[in-house]
């Protein structure tokens, strides 16, 4: 009884956070002389207005959901894996590298795609483990190790695109030479999404849900995250589990990066990680690290990103409004959590 009361109270506070963030965005819109209702409905239309748009939302949802899955694992282990952007990038780089390797061979393209994606996963894992090694054996806080590794990963990426892997003669921001279509992950009709990426994402979601909710592994990770010393005393090999958390997160990030290459861009591009890593971390905070919410909230964020495209076309507003909406939502919900704890704690 008491529990259900605090539950409904907490929903009330979350709702309050939502209202506040909507209010905040409305004020911002009024400030720039725009009609908020029109803006909101445009975003909705832009995300779900027709099948193509829904398909595009799904395309953005795939990496976002995957990355969020990974981030939840590191969050559970008490780690701030800010290096995830770099892990996505490395996933993409490894995938591209492998496809380039097989480009003019007779190896079955399907096989090449599979090997390339595995390589991408390995790339993500390696980069994550590097942050892990720095943390575990070097005492370098994962936030700063990860930030540094992000910069290095991006530099490596740009270096490859403009250097070793540049298109003949024209190094360009458009990325490396696109692969022949046989190396593309097949998409559905004229839509841009692929059943394969969706299937992989759904598998990832299910795996993470059960991993964190119902397995000994998940419980041990949680123990490491909540009290590392105690966890060690209770017999959990803590540094190994931290490394495992990095590994799993790197796996998801690498997979996301690989899919960006084989399913979306068909080449390596400069901003391949697309900020999905950071966005995934925000989603993680917003859903309070509960795996069950990953899919819908990632969909919501993806919809904001895609729907926001309509703002400049029709209202001549900058699309960064979507980012403002996402950020303020997470911020206000978090603040309301604090307010709730403060008020209820005082009773």
């Amino acid at each position, binding site marked *: 009884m008491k529990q259900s009361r605090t539950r409904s109270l907490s929903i009330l506070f979350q709702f309050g956070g939502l209202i506040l963030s909507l209010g905040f965005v409305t004020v911002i819109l009024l400030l720039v002389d725009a009609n908020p209702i029109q803006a909101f409905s445009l975003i909705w239309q*832009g995300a779900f*207005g*027709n*099948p*193509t*748009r829904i398909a*595009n939302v799904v*395309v*953005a949802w795939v*990496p*976002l959901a995957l990355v969020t899955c990974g981030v939840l694992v590191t969050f559970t282990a008490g780690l701030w894996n800010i290096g995830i952007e770099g892990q996505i990038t490395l996933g993409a780089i490894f995938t591209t590298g492998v496809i380039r390797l097989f480009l003019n061979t007779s190896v079955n393209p399907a096989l090449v795609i599979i090997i390339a994606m595995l390589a991408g996963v390995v790339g993500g894992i390696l980069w994550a483990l590097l942050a892990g090694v720095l943390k575990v054996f070097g005492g370098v806080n994962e936030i700063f190790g990860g930030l540094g590794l992000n*910069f290095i990963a*991006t*530099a490596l990426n*740009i270096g490859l695109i*403009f250097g070793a892997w540049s298109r*003949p*003669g*024209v*190094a*360009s*921001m*458009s*990325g490396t030479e*696109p692969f022949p279509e046989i190396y593309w992950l097949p998409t559905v*009709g*004229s*839509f*841009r999404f692929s059943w394969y990426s969706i299937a992989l994402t759904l598998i990832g979601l299910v795996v993470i849900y059960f991993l964190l909710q119902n397995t000994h592994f998940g419980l041990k990770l949680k123990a490491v995250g909540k009290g590392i010393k105690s966890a060690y005393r209770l017999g959990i090999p803590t540094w190994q589990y931290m490394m495992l958390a990095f590994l799993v997160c790197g796996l998801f990030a690498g997979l996301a990066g690989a899919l960006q290459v084989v399913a*979306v*861009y068909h*080449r390596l*591009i*400069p*901003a*391949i990680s*697309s*900020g*999905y890593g950071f*966005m995934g971390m925000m989603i993680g905070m917003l859903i309070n690290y509960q795996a069950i919410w990953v899919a819908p909230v990632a969909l919501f964020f*993806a919809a904001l*990103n*895609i729907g926001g*495209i*309509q703002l*400049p*076309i*029709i209202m001549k507003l*900058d*699309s*960064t409004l979507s980012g403002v909406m996402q950020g303020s939502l997470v911020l206000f919900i978090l603040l309301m959590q604090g307010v709730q704890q403060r008020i209820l704690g005082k009773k």
Partner: protein
Amino acid sequence: KPKAPAEEPAAPVEEPAAPVEEPAAPVEEPEEFVFGILMVGPYNDRGYSQAHYEAGLYVEEKLPGTRMIYLDSVNTADRPGTTPAQLGEELVAQGAKMVIFNSDDMKDDAIEFAKNHPEIFVIHASGDTQWPDGENYIPLDNMVNIMGRMEYGKMIAGCDAALHSETGSIGYLGPLINEETRRLASAAYLGAKYCWEEYLQLDPADLNFRVTWIGFWFNIPGFTEDPSLVAQEFINSDVDVIISGIDTTEGLIEARKAAGEGARVFSIPYDYIGACDEAPEVCLGVPWFNWGPAYLRHITNATTGNWKAVFEWNGPSWEDLNNFDTTNVGYLPGPAVDPNAAILLESFIDELAGGLNLWAGPLNLQDGTPWLAAGEFATDTQVWYLPQLLEGMEGRSE
């Protein structure tokens, strides 16, 4: 309607439902022609993208019944998870019958889009895929390539710089290294060298033309050189005119600062006719793009059924370099131009108008490899695909 689509081989690709079902059609004024522009930067960047945006406004004004829609900041950093091809479809969903891709970076997407949407007219600005002589020829009936011959603008900029340099050191603030940026930097060098020798009667050995690449079209902390520092470094090492090849105006700003502190430094920005406004007191002029006339022509062709897939590399209008209706590239002298130099610059422009070709042999590449023999003139493809900087220029070629 274009004749082309019928022959399109890519027919099996199913049409996305969107453009057809879009309810924009029913209550509409007779035959409004909507064209969409995808711009790589912000539409109001006072640079490359704004030049396209204003060309769109120009078309709207000159050709009643047309309407522009646009999407700016089309790049993966600003629009994560999207591709220009997908964004092109968004424009189509809003009724666009033509989509203009404004950047070289959108090449692959422009092609993908053109293939998937044979009924939509596509203009790819700065591309070379419709050039039968080019190295990347991919014939597509619904696509047109347009590029301005900015080499002329850069030559004039180079001349302007040389005419104003007292130290004989000119700095070229380069973006990333590719064929386009190499040929533009080289053109500036050719212009500078010509004016230095012919008009000022100075020894070419005393002309110091340095290119420093920042590694990108604009500054990204941690990845590119800092263009402000590059400009400062130019100024510190006696450069008194900075020619900018990048999207942002650090050259101008640093010159303005140096001038404010008593130094004699000028700068020449790039891309947009209004670029001098950020620091008129040190601005010698700006080579600018005028996409309007070409857009107008091709949009008219599209509406009148005269569309033809072509590659165009359009030169300036020598009668009036800054006429919005006629020229494709221009050069607008800045407020800081010295009156005497202005006269010489005028005669240089006249010479160019009269057929002066600076891409003339003997010319060697930077490493000394002969490129043009004496008396030889470079072909368009030779210029377009220039493999190195030219001999006499300082800076990296790769």
